[in-house]
């Protein structure tokens, strides 16, 4: 067992080295730096639309790049594509497996993806004469928790098998496998420049990956439970994570550490979902307690709440133009607020 002991000592030494290096640049807190900034205003958003149509819990939603259409996934076994300006359903895609956990739409608007306890990511062309499954991506050994298209020929997936994967949609095969997490991967988000992505997992860590070479560049620790939600700050230089430990954290990529935390002693519910307003100043977080809290990202103060759902808020999203926010819930409804 000599080599194992040596390796363990080496690993512990490196972890200490990393912590020391992080402390060395930890010369202040975001709270101190932001004390001179005016507080964000109290945010009171109105529920402009309620999208009704799903018959069971909603598990995922994703805005189209056109800022108007959206795909949602429910364990009623359907994906619905909505025109959010009118509230009308444009397409309905029946799923082979109703145990869906996530959905996404390609930037082109041509393709949608879904997956869940079937361990597969199913790609459907919604612009065909009637929605047509074009690929079933079938190599993960655990559930599919999240997916995001880079374009019509590449998609990133996160899985309960602890890996993330980049797939080639022309061949249906894995191009790159991202291995480093030691717990189920629950969420992922792409950087604005599409060169890197971040993942959150049940090992309480978030990781930054190089999309093309598959390498893990940085690991962010501090959460004490599963990370269910993750998002990039719009500058691409920081990330926000939401966890079952009832907190959100902001990690700065260049300082390589946590720079802000969003929590409340009274809040006793896990964070399920997170999305930011277009300037990054507002953090919208969905919780198990049926609400969505709005946080000032700089001062870490609660500045508003979205209440209206009768069950857990499971997913949340702000379209690219920042004109609204959509919440999806286990109560089977989607609500749009601004």
């Amino acid at each position, binding site marked *: *067992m000599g080599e*194992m002991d040596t*390796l*363990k000592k080496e*690993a512990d030494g*490196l*972890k200490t080295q*990393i912590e020391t*290096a*992080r402390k*060395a*640049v930890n*010369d*202040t*807190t*975001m709270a101190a*730096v*932001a004390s001179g*900034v005016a507080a*964000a*205003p109290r*945010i009171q*958003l109105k529920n*402009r*639309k309620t999208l009704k149509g799903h018959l069971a819990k909603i598990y995922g939603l994703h805005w189209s790049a056109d800022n108007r259409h959206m795909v949602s996934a429910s364990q009623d076994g359907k994906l619905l594509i909505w025109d*959010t*300006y009118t509230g009308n359903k444009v397409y309905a895609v029946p799923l082979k497996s109703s145990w869906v956990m996530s959905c996404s739409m390609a930037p082109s608007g041509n393709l949608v993806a879904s997956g869940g306890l079937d361990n597969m990511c199913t790609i459907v062309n919604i612009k065909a004469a009637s929605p047509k499954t074009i690929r079933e991506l079938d190599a993960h050994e655990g559930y599919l928790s999240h997916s995001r298209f880079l374009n019509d020929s590449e998609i990133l997936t996160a899985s309960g098998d602890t890996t993330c994967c980049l797939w080639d949609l022309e061949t249906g095969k894995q191009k790159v496998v991202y291995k*480093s997490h*030691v717990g189920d991967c629950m969420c992922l988000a792409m950087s604005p420049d599409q060169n890197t992505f971040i993942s959150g997992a049940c090992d309480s860590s978030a990781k930054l990956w190089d999309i093309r070479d598959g*390498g*893990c*560049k*940085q*690991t962010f620790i501090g959460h004490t439970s599963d990370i269910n939600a993750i998002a990039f*700050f*719009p*500058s691409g*230089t*920081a990330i926000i994570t939401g966890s079952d430990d009832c907190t959100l954290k902001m990690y*700065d990529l*260049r*300082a*390589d*550490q946590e*720079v802000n935390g969003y929590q409340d002693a009274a809040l006793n519910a896990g964070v399920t979902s997170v999305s930011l*307003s*277009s*300037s*990054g*100043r*507002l953090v919208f977080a969905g919780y198990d307690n049926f609400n969505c809290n709005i946080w000032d*990202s*700089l001062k870490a103060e609660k500045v508003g709440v979205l209440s209206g759902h009768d069950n857990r808020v499971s997913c949340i999203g*702000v379209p690219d*133009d*920042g*004109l*609204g*926010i959509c919440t999806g819930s286990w109560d089977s409804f989607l609500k749009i607020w*601004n």
Partner: protein
Amino acid sequence: MSSKMPSSNNVTQARRTVQQLKIEASIERIKVSKASADLMHYCGEHAKYDPLLMGIPASENPFKDKKPCAIL
């Protein structure tokens, strides 16, 4: 990690962990003061274009239900 894994797999896994930690230990880090200031600056520069922060005039709100106009 399964305790049923043969010991050679444990060693391979431990070597990979050390390799990964070496990569993460070697990156350059900037000061939290600079990182925070840059994030604040970004928010400040983009605040006026942030509809959820600034509010949206009814005429420009695509989600607001429009009342029908009667042509008299």
